[in-house]
């Protein structure tokens, strides 16, 4: 039942998976990728592992999975006896999926801004920041409504993989020149998330809270 993660410390997408492995208390083997400057994820060898040339990739029992969101689903599905990280009831399952897609979709504009500012990726930075702000606002409005309803998490009364998937690129916004000033509900949600037992910070997210 060995788990292996193709990992890079500075990747927010890999961080989603590391967080989840940590929350579930799972041991894993880490395959260190030289993402930058080595661009090992684009090497022919790695393309055999993931033709998309992206990390993270997780292997377990002959299963090979790419895409952080898919990996979170797999981990919760296989290793979370409580069922709370990926609730199956109709009231929560759909919304969790919806925010998971948002994390892998709209929110990735914040990842693009970060890759531009920190690692010099060539892309339209103003466009990336504009899209990231629009995504942050959608989540902030949602979490404001949740605050009004007396709730703290994106879906339901406990943290789910939707929170895990959304957290990294919201928290790492500053790395892409995006401040948290305009998102009070996001700030409160992030603080609650960082105070979860077994939470681990990564570079770009201060250790102390």
């Amino acid at each position, binding site marked *: 039942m060995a788990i292996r993660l193709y990992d890079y410390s500075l990747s927010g997408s890999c961080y989603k998976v590391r967080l989840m492995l940590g929350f579930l208390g799972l041991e894993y083997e880490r395959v260190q990728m030289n993402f930058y400057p080595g661009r090992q994820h684009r090497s022919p060898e790695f393309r055999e592992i993931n033709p998309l040339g992206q990390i993270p990739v997780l292997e377990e029992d002959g299963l090979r999975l790419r895409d952080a969101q898919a990996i979170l689903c797999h981990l919760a599905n296989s290793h979370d006896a409580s069922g709370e990280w990926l609730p199956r009831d109709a009231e929560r399952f759909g919304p969790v999926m919806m925010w998971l897609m948002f994390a892998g979709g709209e929110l990735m504009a914040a990842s693009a801004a970060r890759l531009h500012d920190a690692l010099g990726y060539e892309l339209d930075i103003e466009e990336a920041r504009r899209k990231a702000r629009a995504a942050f*606002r959608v989540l902030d*409005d949602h979490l*404001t*409504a949740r*605050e*009004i*309803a007396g709730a703290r998490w994106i879906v339901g009364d406990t943290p789910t993989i939707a929170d895990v998937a959304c957290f990294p690129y919201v928290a790492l916004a500053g790395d892409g020149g995006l*401040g*948290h*000033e*305009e*998102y*009070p*509900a996001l*700030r*409160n949600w992030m*603080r609650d998330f960082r105070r979860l037992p077994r939470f681990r910070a990564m570079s770009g997210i*201060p250790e*102390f*809270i």
Partner: protein
Amino acid sequence: MSVARELWTGVALDDQIQAASSNPVILDGQALAVWRGEEGPVRVWEDRCPHRGMRLSFGFVRGETLRCIYHGWTYATDGQCLAIPAHPTLAPPKTICASTYPSETRYGIVWTKLDGGSNGAALPDLGPDEGWEPVRSLFVHAAASPVLEALLNCDLGQQGPVHMVAENAAEVEIGPELRVLVAVHAMDDERTALHAVARGPRAASERAGLARRLERLRDDIERA
């Protein structure tokens, strides 16, 4: 609208400043750290540590002290530095002090002014402090004057006229039972924050609906 430095400005909802948290706020281009100890009221400081300039909104709270994230210097609620971890036995000189701004929590809103003196108008008097419910804060990508104008002409549903209770705060009555107060906070030339609270027997139950209408107002202003 440029912010008169001696004018009290609402900069956050008290309800949204968690216990043991430090938060970044921009007022008229000035970066502020708005923080609360594990208990006690919200404080407004310059967002800059006297040591090496790190923003104190990145700091962490222990008890009623704010600690800078960079080297862990510890500040008391009056701004005085209490401890320097690099020199655990040293009593920090009195000269090491974070810059503070006056702050008042009234009607569920945290107010501050950049001019620390007692010049300028008092906070608007809207009667007793109790009974105000938070609605929400909004951040509009537009200058303060068009936002103010839109606010004066807004429709929050079956309302009376909007009237200004201060240069930067407006109140509107929605039926006899519900009053909404909106503080207008110029962040810079392009961004304006609104902090809304409501009062009356229906305030709590109407909160979600009011929040949605304010979001609509925000989106309408930005589209204009």
